[in-house]
Every structure is written in structure tokens, then in C-alpha cells.
């Protein structure tokens, strides 16, 4: 893969996605060993810039960096110069001036990592930007589906929940449709982007219809922090009409793979029974996330001069 940044799955080719997933498979093996660390990124430094709260993604990236022997520094927006009024570009350029090779960035504004990627030499990895994309989540979801079912092409995947505010949904849709899966999205029309069908998916508000024969169901979190515009009457009503329950799941394929990017609102988008269902792979997603993020950091090549001679010298050895 010849790419400085990973900003979104919309920009990736199917070959690039396949290459990341295959590489993640090798790193998944590393995570099962007694010594879960390889010296691959020794001497590289990663800055984790989280302008929005995150536990899972931040820890997952930090672990991936440590497992690759990179040095990592954490940056927390609430205790930083951002509160003193520094602009985003200045913040990131200052951090880069300290000799950082990778910037992992989560930001509330859609597109922020694109802006930064164009202004720094370091590789930028988008760890979620607004309601735009969350590419490593999309990749780890696809990685988990591929490991569980052995394929992506021809899979029927139902994505249920708040599509409009979900960067996870967008990354899933771009990635899965590129890889030849059939994607159905389902949710209240107030939480569905108007032209979602232009992304190559079908939409329905009937959960039963979305689940019919599905191989995978990816249940999205209802983001309470983004529900300020009265788009839902109540969480209880959402659970009643869109919550995934064992009865509704009976319409899906018998060995349906149940996914959720976390954190779960038990009893809202996912019922207690489904959250405990043996077919769910929610914790596998978390483990696989570390492997996928290791693969991404390994494959990106920011700050490295393209050296044809060095490549020649490695033909044998």
C-alpha cells in the first residue's frame, strides 16, 4: 500500500482494503503469543490527539502502538492548549515539530483529519471525525465478518440504528459495498440521511425486513449525546420499534453474526438477551481492533523517503 494517511474507506481501493485485512491477520497471530510485541516500529513516535472523548478506540490505538514498539504520546483536548484558544492547525504542527511520525486523530468536526493531513508530513490516521467516517472501525468490522464467515463478497449485512450521526455506519457502507457485500440500512427516517441509497444500499424502517436472511447484523449505538434536535420521541419508543430482540433476530440467518461497535445501551438498540447471545462477536471486535490498527500503522508510510536503492538491497538477505 502506497499511502501516507488513512482518512476514510471511501478513498481506498478494494486491493488496499484486502491488503490491510490480510496484514491484520498476521498481527492477530502476534496477539495470541506469550510475547505480544514486535520491534517493527521501534524509534517511531505516534501522537494520539483526541479532541473528543473516547475510551475504547484510544486504548485500542495505544495498545497497537505499544505492541509495535512505537513510542506514543497522549493528548487530551480538555487539558491542552486548545482551551487556550490555539487553532487546530497550530496545535498539530507544534506537535509534529517535536518529531512525530504518526498522528492518530479523533475530532468532532467532519473532515478535520483531511485538513490536517494536507498540512503535516506525518501520517494521519482518522480515529473518527464528526459523523463522517471511522475507518479503522469499518476495517475491524469487516475483518471480524471475514474471519467469522470466511468472505465479504455476497454477504448480506444489516446495519440498524442512527445512520445519520454514525461515522461507523458510513465507513461500514463504503467498505462493505466496495468488497461486494449487500448492505441494508434500517432506522427511523429522522435518523437516516436523505440520500443514503446513493451510497449503494437499500433502506427500510422495518427491522424485520432488514433482518430477513441477513448473514450479519451490525447494531449501532443510539448516540444520546447527539440527540438534541428531538429526532426521537423517546429511547423507549426507539427500543420498541428498532431494538434488536431475539424474536426479530429469528428472521436472520441461523448463524447470524451479531456485531456492535460499543458502548452498548442494553435495552435500547440491543436487548439484554441479544447482548448475551452466543452468536455475538462484540468482544472479538475489540480484540480484532488492535490487530487492524497495528496493520494500518505498519502499512502507512509517512515521513519515509521512497528509497529505491534500499529496496534493491533487500532483494536477498
Amino acid at each position: 500500500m502506497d499511502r501516507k494517511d488513512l482518512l476514510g474507506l471511501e478513498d481506498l481501493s478494494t486491493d488496499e482494503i484486502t491488503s490491510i485485512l490480510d496484514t491484520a491477520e498476521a498481527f492477530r497471530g502476534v496477539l495470541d503469543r506469550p510475547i505480544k510485541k514486535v520491534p517493527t516500529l521501534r524509534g517511531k513516535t505516534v501522537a494520539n490527539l483526541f479532541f473528543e472523548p473516547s475510551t475504547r478506540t484510544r486504548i485500542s490505538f495505544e495498545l497497537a502502538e505499544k505492541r509495535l514498539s512505537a513510542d506514543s504520546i497522549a493528548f487530551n483536548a480538555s487539558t491542552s492548549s486548545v482551551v487556550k484558544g490555539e487553532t487546530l492547525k497550530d496545535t498539530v504542527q507544534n506537535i509534529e515539530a517535536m518529531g512525530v511520525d504518526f498522528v492518530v486523530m479523533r475530532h468532532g468536526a467532519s473532515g478535520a483529519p483531511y485538513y490536517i493531513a494536507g498540512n503535516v508530513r506525518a501520517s494521519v490516521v482518522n480515529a473518527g471525525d464528526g459523523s463522517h467516517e471511522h475507518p479503522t472501525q469499518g476495517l475491524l468490522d469487516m475483518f471480524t465478518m471475514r474471519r467469522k464467515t470466511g468472505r465479504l463478497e455476497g454477504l448480506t449485512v444489516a446495519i440498524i440504528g442512527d445512520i445519520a450521526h454514525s461515522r461507523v455506519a458510513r465507513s461500514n457502507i463504503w467498505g462493505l459495498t466496495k468488497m461486494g457485500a449487500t448492505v441494508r440500512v434500517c432506522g427511523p427516517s429522522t435518523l437516516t440521511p436523505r440520500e443514503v441509497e446513493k451510497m449503494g444500499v437499500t433502506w427500510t424502517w422495518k427491522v424485520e425486513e432488514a433482518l430477513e436472511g441477513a448473514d450479519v447484523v451490525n447494531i449501532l449505538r443510539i448516540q444520546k449525546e447527539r440527540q438534541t434536535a428531538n429526532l426521537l420521541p423517546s429511547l423507549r419508543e426507539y427500543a420498541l420499534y428498532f431494538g434488536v430482540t431475539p424474536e426479530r433476530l429469528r428472521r436472520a440467518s441461523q448463524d447470524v453474526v451479531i456485531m456492535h461497535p460499543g458502548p452498548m445501551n442494553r435495552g435500547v438498540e440491543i436487548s439484554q438477551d441479544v447482548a448475551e447471545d452466543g452468536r455475538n462477536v462484540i468482544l472479538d471486535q475489540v480484540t480484532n481492533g488492535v490487530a487492524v490498527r497495528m496493520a494500518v500503522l505498519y502499512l502507512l508510510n509517512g515521513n519515509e523517503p521512497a528509497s529505491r536503492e534500499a529496496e534493491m538491497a533487500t532483494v536477498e538477505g
Partner: protein
Amino acid sequence: MPTKESDLKVKAQISDANGIRRMLTRIAHEIVERNKGTENLVLVGIRRRGVPLAVRIRELIHEFEGEQIPMGSLDITLYRDDLQTIAQHPVVRTTEIPVDIDGKTVVLVDDVLYTGRTVRSALNALIDLGRPQAIRLAVLVDRGHRELPIRADFVGKNVPTSHREIVAVSVVEEDGTDAVQIKELDDDGS
């Protein structure tokens, strides 16, 4: 690989399928002789061409000792010392060693021993997986020019070469044919 096959011309044929079979047969016998049997032996092929060679050595040992010794394959990409200088990182393949190597005698198998850097990476990779009693090295061709203090325990053939030359080992499993050839960069085009 960045060096295109078409840039290289074949200078000499060192060995064919029969030659490779004889070399591996001798190596297989030497491994068992040195170990005084097959007890505690584990064969580990270095990806990619070390793996089919390890498979063959294992079959040969099975033929004359009647024992199936455990084997695995090792990918050393993550342990390379030149990742800093390569713009596009090479493909990582999986490492599969299905047995516990603690206390075992591990025989690393590779096609060509050159600078010794691959073997250095393999030693580090192996030590991250456990603590073998001993690690030995078997190679089909030793072409000299070591850059590290590393020596093979079992060698199919010593082939003196110059830096400009490339020793190309082909195996049926990967390349469709068994051969050892010396190739050289063609000056005509450059």
C-alpha cells in the same frame, strides 16, 4: 520484489531437481545424526522458500526414521532491520508454529544464506515465541558475504559469488520448478 526478473540474466545453473533432492537428503541425515535421533526436534521454515524445503526435509526424515517431527513456518518481516529505509513496507505473512518450542532443538531452514540479516531476524522472532534448548540453521546454499557473525550448521552447497550476482532458488511449490541458478544484473539495459 522490486528487482524485475527481466533485468536478470541466468549466468550459471548450480543445481536441478535431483541435485536439490540429494542435498536435502544429506541435510536430513545430518540433522538426525547431530541430534542423535529425532527427539525434541522442531523444523521451522523461514518464509517463503524455507517452508517448502522444511516440508521436504521432514518427509525425508519420516522416510528413514519413521517419525513425523513437528514443523512450523516463520515470517520475519516484522523483525527486519531495514524497515526504516523501505518506503513501502513488505507484505506480512503469518507465523505458524503449532508446537511449544520451549526446550526443543529448533532447526531453522532457509534457501540462501547471504548477509545473515534474515537469520538474525529469525532468531529474534523465534526467541519471542519461546526458549528453545538450541537453534540450528540449515540452508540449501551458502553464498558468502556475511555481514553478521552467523554460520550455518547444515549446508547443501557453498557457492562463491560476487555482490552483483543473485542466487535464485526455485522450488516446485512456489515457482513450478526445482533449480538453483546464479543470475546477474544485465548491463545492457542500464
